[in-house]
């Protein structure tokens, strides 16, 4: 029963937390707000509406339980873990190193067995995108091992 209602439960918790956070917002002096509304009013109204909709959703699930979603497969989990790895590598080394490593591992996780193809894709794609953004769009990328070397 609780498993079936997991989505409404999560939505309720999120809505309540947002209402709590909204209630912590500063009140603006009436002179500024005038006849309009306080900055906290709109988010609170939205979350109250969300709670109402969530109650309807919970009732719908109670009346007609939905099919249980298939368990997430290994590749999906790995893809998510690689996103976390991307964060770690970007912060500690360089964004383009992170992209190349994650692209390579993503290819392998998704079933690519030709290591050379996966490696070529992982190196050439970010390199070509970098060339385009750096030369045509004149974007400066965040500094890291490679960018420090490139920008000097």
């Amino acid at each position, binding site marked *: 029963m609780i498993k079936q209602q997991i989505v409404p439960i999560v939505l309720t918790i999120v809505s309540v937390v947002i209402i709590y956070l909204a209630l912590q917002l500063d009140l603006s002096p009436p002179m500024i707000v005038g006849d309009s509304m306080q*900055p906290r009013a709109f*988010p609170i109204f939205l979350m109250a509406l969300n709670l109402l909709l969530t109650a309807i959703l919970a009732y719908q699930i109670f009346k007609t339980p939905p099919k249980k979603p298939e368990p997430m497969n290994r590749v999906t989990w790995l893809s998510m873990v690689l996103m976390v790895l991307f964060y770690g590598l970007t912060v500690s080394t360089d964004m383009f190193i992170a*992209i190349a490593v994650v692209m390579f591992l993503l290819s392998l996780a998704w079933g690519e067995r030709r290591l050379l193809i996966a490696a070529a894709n992982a190196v050439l794609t970010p390199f070509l995108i970098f060339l385009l953004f750096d030369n045509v769009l004149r974007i400066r990328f965040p500094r890291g091992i490679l960018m420090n070397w490139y920008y000097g």
Partner: protein
Amino acid sequence: MYEALSALGSVVLDPYLLFLIFATTIIGIVIGVLPGLGATTGAALLLPFTLTMDPVHAIAVLATIYVSATFAGSITAILINTPGTSAAAATTFDGFPLAQRGEAGRALGIAVIASTFGGIVSVIVLCFAAPLLARVAYEFRPPEYFALTIFGLSMLASISSGGAVKNLIGGVFGVWLSTIGAERVTAIERFMFGNYELYEGLSFVPVMIGLFAMSELLVQSKMANQAVEYIKMKAVQLPSREDYKKIWKTVLRSSGIGTFIGILPAEGATVASMIGYSEAKRWSKNKEEFGKGSIEGIAGAESANNAATGGAMVPTMVLGIPGSGTTAIILVGLMVHGLRPGPYLFNEQVTAVYQIFGSMFVANVMFLLMGLYAAKIFARISLVPAAILWPIVFALSVIGAYALNSSMLDIWIVLIFGVIGFLARRFGFAVAPIAVGLILGKMVEVNLQNSLKIFNGEWWQIFTQPLAVLFLVLAFLGLCGPQLFRLATRGSFEAKDGKSD
């Protein structure tokens, strides 16, 4: 009309713009044939590449992606029974069975002609309807705009898969996301958690890339090693005279249906193609052929989905209310490039508007030529292994998101919204309502605030404005109409049952 024709002329005479449309049509078709990468994801990924372009060129690129990817979904729908875009789902019903009978070239020929006709009809309607609607919308004040955005949000209930309630929850969540940042009047910081990069609110582009591209990557990961049945064909065949005789009424009807559905706020090509298909079946003399390779079925679905592209641009450009997920990105593109969507656009940038419409017209002609002569080559692209394709999407997503504001935060937003979008879809929520809610959110709050000021804080005065009431009634009917209709018909059925008893 003179302005429209001269703008079309200026598009045709601008070699750089023509080249851009040509190149983007190829990219759009490639995106459309790759299962999982639809027009919306494609537009989200390409938006950062338009940053240094002239506004007209940039929007022309996005609009071209929209029309060409919507068409291209039919290529894989016919050849591998996998719609490249959700809008081509109805094309699989008859396209694939016809291809299995050895008539893949004929099926593609019908799809190309019907799509082009639907697309061109909708652009013509766009040229006429948009300025007329703009003239009406020019008179709108904050109460009318507030009611209109509520109407637009209410239409989210049917924007895509997921139930009405789930779509509305997604929409409300999206509107809440728009409240992040400093409040417009009082500058009080809301939900920023001390991060001053959020002072001006969540940037639309990384949220869109996260919701559409990154979440799609995670969705596709469960189909990483799926094999597909690919039907080979010799060449695309133009429809014969007999075929034209059989489909012309269907194409006309579905083009009208598609354009009209596209114009409705928050309704898009997918709904249009389904209704176009079912109407084609309803009016057909050969209903028994449907589902077994009917050319009317292909024509009905294809002309409707491409007609919806022009229709969906009407509320996007005139009212600032996106008609679909892709037009939500085009709307963001307009804002990023400094064009103010809404009726004022037709006063301030009338030439630019018609050049954008002209570009859509040219894009329809371009994909006709490419569809006829290169569909076979494009179909092979759909066989690119997912293990190569999706890492490229990952790289494009993170670099593209960074490029807009040169902000690392935008990259983290892409990743976070990728996971949020994936989880939402896993539990039956569509992501398009979140995106549309985010875009409309500011409009709702600002117009509500302004309405309250106009009426000295008496909110109920909104109900004294006839047009505002009309939009609110339409919103109510949009939300509760189906339930009321069901209740009413149940009552009549029960009465009939009672009589028979």
